[in-house]
């Protein structure tokens, strides 16, 4: 409790027309933490991330990044504050090449040299991307796209990474690889990660903390280990 | 419910059928309009109307006609008007769209209640209101077009042509070429409407054997490259250009561009040297003649004409018009032959109105047109008698000389628009003082 949490969410509410998608969500994420946001389809997980990154307007509540209120700033400014969102499916721009996608992520920073260094780091981190730098992103496999998406986010030098279902449509082995890499990133760079996952077990296996959403509200919050053991989790997903 | 509707519908249909019986195209001849009336004439004014393309793709070039006419009327008004009445000249924009022409003409006749129509411009446009004007008994004077159809006194007793028609002019051009350049190969370049066909009819009577190519352009397509290159291909030494000014200029530029130097023979509609100079002003330098003005490009151009052109600085009418233009025209563009065209129309109108008497009626205006020799500033006789509404009935052949007065190659000739002979015309040109607009 001594340290200020890097991300604080207070009473965040968002709606699509008449449908309330988020209802007074409260969260705190400590620096260097990895936390999972879980819940069935339609529970509001994606909306939560979109609202955090400014893609969706918050009806009420605040988002604080290291104490600074970022609730109302435009989505493209979040990168400058060190908060980067990798949307569902990765948001890879398939019309661009792999290298262009990566470059795009680091563009907001000045300094050609720094960008080049970062690119080298990212390629180091994701070897499959190295051989495909000049290929259109459309030719990548699902796992490679997810790597590219995360790599592009890393190019921006984030302090907080919001990841929306990185395992979607991926084989278990690939999912595992990505999860391992997140752990490594945390260890290497003190990166804070908010991970939205449907695959609850694999998410909880690498996170320290989890939030379970239902109907736009946080219905459970606990350490990952305890959530794993909780039967209510199973119910939230499988309904039995 | 339906059982009641069906008979009602049938009844309605039957009623409709009954009332609209009779062919849509079968028109009954109405009684001739009463001409002993003077709408638009008040104690101190006479209202004259015109339709002109002031906007849209066809506007360029023609705005100056009404500017010129307005300047002359302004001049007349400043000098006391016509028999004490000021002339109120109302110009409506029809954008060269016949649908608009019909609308604005009705507006002029019914709402503005003009006394007469002056110089309605364009064949496709004015041809759609000729019947209307004649039915309504509106004198339709001096149509701004060289089509043959204005001169039909039986059908359109109130419509009078103005400019020499395309066939007459082409006959005179053709005869001149046949007589003076018998060995030349001749190519035609003309607009793909009645300007072209009427001109071709005239030319063919004299130069059919010399003719090597007939090319036409569409006024909507400014790329005349293919046509000019075809003329060059055919080795035409003489190109007869029955074109509007923009296309004369385009043809000359295009010819210059491919290194083709035929003798251009241009009809009066496209030979306005002042307009052409304006259009070509940017290109003289590129022609490698830095020290010469644009007119150098036009030097040697043969053209036909029936009223004095702006370059005839010694002509008393041109002198008067220049003065009027300076004093009364709005805007700062230089005077062109197009301006003079409108000024001649206005002058003739003023003259006719003056002769129509102190209490003019439409009938007295028509009588004045019939009885008066309206040659006025023109270079050839003006036909406005009971049986011939043709307007200027012939042309001079001239050659443009850079920086000088144009050279008259052949004096005024007149002819008809059929197979008739071309004869020398005797012209009795009154001076401006004989019109006496400022005597009042």
């Amino acid at each position, binding site marked *: 409790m001594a340290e200020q949490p890097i991300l604080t969410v207070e009473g965040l509410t968002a709606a699509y*027309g*008449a*449908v309330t998608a988020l209802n007074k969500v409260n969260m705190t994420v400590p620096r260097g933490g990895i936390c999972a946001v879980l819940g*069935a*389809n*339609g529970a509001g997980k994606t909306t939560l991330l979109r609202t955090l990154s400014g893609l969706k307007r918050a009806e009420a509540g605040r988002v604080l990044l290291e104490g600074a209120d970022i609730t109302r700033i435009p989505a493209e400014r979040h990168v400058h504050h060190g908060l980067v969102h990798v949307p569902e499916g990765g948001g890879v721009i398939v019309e661009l090449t792999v290298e262009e996608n990566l470059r795009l992520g680091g563009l907001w920073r000045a300094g050609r040299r720094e960008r080049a260094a970062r690119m080298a780091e990212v390629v180091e981190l994701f070897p499959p991307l190295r051989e495909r730098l000049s290929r259109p992103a459309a030719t990548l*496999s*699902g796992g490679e796209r997810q790597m590219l998406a995360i790599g592009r986010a890393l190019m921006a030098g984030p302090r907080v990474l919001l990841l929306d*279902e990185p395992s*979607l*449509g*991926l*084989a278990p082995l690939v999912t595992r690889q990505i999860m391992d890499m997140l752990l490594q990133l945390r260890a290497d760079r003190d990166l804070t990660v908010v991970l939205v996952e*449907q*695959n*609850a*077990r*694999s*998410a909880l*296996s690498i996170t320290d903390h989890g939030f379970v959403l239902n*109907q736009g509200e946080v219905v459970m919050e606990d350490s990952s280990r305890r959530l*794993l053991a909780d*039967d209510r989790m*199973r119910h939230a*997903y*499988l*309904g*039995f | *419910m*339906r059982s009641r509707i069906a008979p009602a519908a049938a009844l309605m249909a039957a009623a409709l059928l009954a009332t609209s019986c009779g062919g849509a195209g079968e028109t009954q001849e109405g009684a001739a309009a009463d001409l002993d009336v003077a709408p638009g004439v008040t104690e101190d004014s006479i209202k004259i109307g015109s339709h002109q393309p002031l906007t849209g793709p066809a506007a360029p070039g023609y705005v100056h006609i009404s500017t010129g006419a307005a300047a002359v009327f302004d001049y007349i008004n400043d000098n006391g008007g016509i028999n004490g009445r000021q002339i109120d000249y109302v110009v409506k924009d029809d954008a060269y769209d016949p649908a608009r022409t019909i609308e604005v003409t009705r507006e002029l006749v019914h709402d503005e209640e003009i006394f007469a129509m002056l110089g309605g411009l364009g064949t496709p446009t004015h041809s759609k209101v000729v019947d209307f004007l004649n039915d309504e008994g509106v004198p339709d004077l001096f149509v701004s077009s060289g089509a043959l159809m204005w001169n039909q006194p039986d059908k359109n007793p109130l419509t009078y042509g103005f400019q020499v028609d395309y066939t007459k002019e082409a006959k005179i051009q053709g005869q001149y070429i046949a007589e003076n350049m018998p060995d030349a190969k001749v190519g035609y370049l003309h607009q793909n409407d009645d300007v072209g066909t009427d001109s071709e009819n005239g030319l063919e009577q004299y130069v059919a054997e010399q003719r090597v190519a007939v090319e036409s352009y569409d006024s909507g397509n400014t790329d005349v490259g293919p046509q000019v290159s075809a003329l060059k291909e055919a080795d035409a030494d003489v190109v007869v250009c029955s074109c509007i000014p923009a296309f004369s200029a385009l043809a000359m530029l295009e010819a210059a561009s491919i290194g083709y130097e035929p003798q251009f023979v241009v009809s009066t509609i496209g030979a306005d040297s002042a307009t052409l100079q304006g259009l070509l002003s940017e290109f003289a330098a590129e022609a490698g003649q830095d020290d010469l003005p644009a007119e150098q490009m036009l030097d040697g151009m043969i053209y036909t004409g029936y009223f004095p052109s702006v370059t005839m600085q010694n002509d008393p009418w041109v002198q008067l018009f220049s003065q009027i233009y300076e004093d009364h025209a709005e805007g700062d563009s230089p005077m062109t032959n197009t301006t003079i065209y409108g000024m001649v129309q206005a002058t003739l109108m003023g003259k006719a109105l003056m002769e129509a008497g102190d209490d003019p009626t439409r009938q007295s205006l028509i009588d004045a047109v019939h009885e008066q020799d309206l040659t006025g500033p023109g270079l050839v006789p003006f036909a406005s008698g009971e049986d011939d509404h043709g307007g200027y009935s012939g042309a001079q052949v001239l050659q443009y000389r850079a920086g000088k007065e144009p050279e008259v190659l052949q004096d005024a000739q007149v002819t008809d628009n059929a197979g008739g002979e071309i004869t020398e015309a005797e012209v009795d040109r009154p001076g401006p003082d004989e019109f006496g607009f400022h005597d009042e």
Partner: protein
Amino acid sequence: MTTTTPAPLLAAEGITVRFGGLTALEDVGLSVTPGSVVGLIGPNGAGKTTLFNAVSGVIRPQRGTVSWKGRVLRRHRPHHLADLGIARTLQGLNLFPGLSALDNVMVGADRLARGGPLAMLTGLGRYHSDERRLRERAMAALEEFGAAHAARAMPGTLPFGVQKRVALARAVVAEPELLLLDEPASGLSGEDMDALAAAIRSFRSRMGVLLVEHHMDLVMAVCDHIVVLNFGEVIATGPPERIQSDPAVAEAYLGDTEEVGADG
């Protein structure tokens, strides 16, 4: 359930779909008999929607057949479904935003009209009786789903739950023999969800239902038979009870095998 197995309305066999190099479905089959509700479940990206699309003719599988009442459908496209007697709802609402709720449902009822093109064009003949019939049928359908009060409202002005009801009314108003429901429960509150479950159960007397859904409560409550997909393959089939106890299903949803055993 009946003891004899009736001939299936819809049967898909050996469906294989590839997108580029990616195999979305591999040798998948399912069948729906009249009066039964079949659930199609699986985690995100398992291929449910792809199968749905293959069945309804949106995409053509590389291998495998779809047959309707024993007849193999070869070149069917989505707009042929209605004529076959199949109604399909789409993920999301897909109501026509420019049409009133009633008009939306009347579009669904369109095939019940008897007038020909001439009547449609001229307003004569059956035009009016058709309009009246369609309107009555549509109103009845709206009433059945408790949305009659919203008949004249534009969809955008209605609460989400009511919009869902309208969409459902539009799907069943033409009395299809088979109803394909694509995630009907998404975004619904508990109360609306109960109503939906009741509605789906009531369909059983009139038509077969194929249901793609994430809400396990709903699936388990209404389905007679469930097909579970994961990574483009069928990993389990059977009645709800069997599915609930199938470790492969829990694994697909919850993750790692080794830990599943402990949870049972």
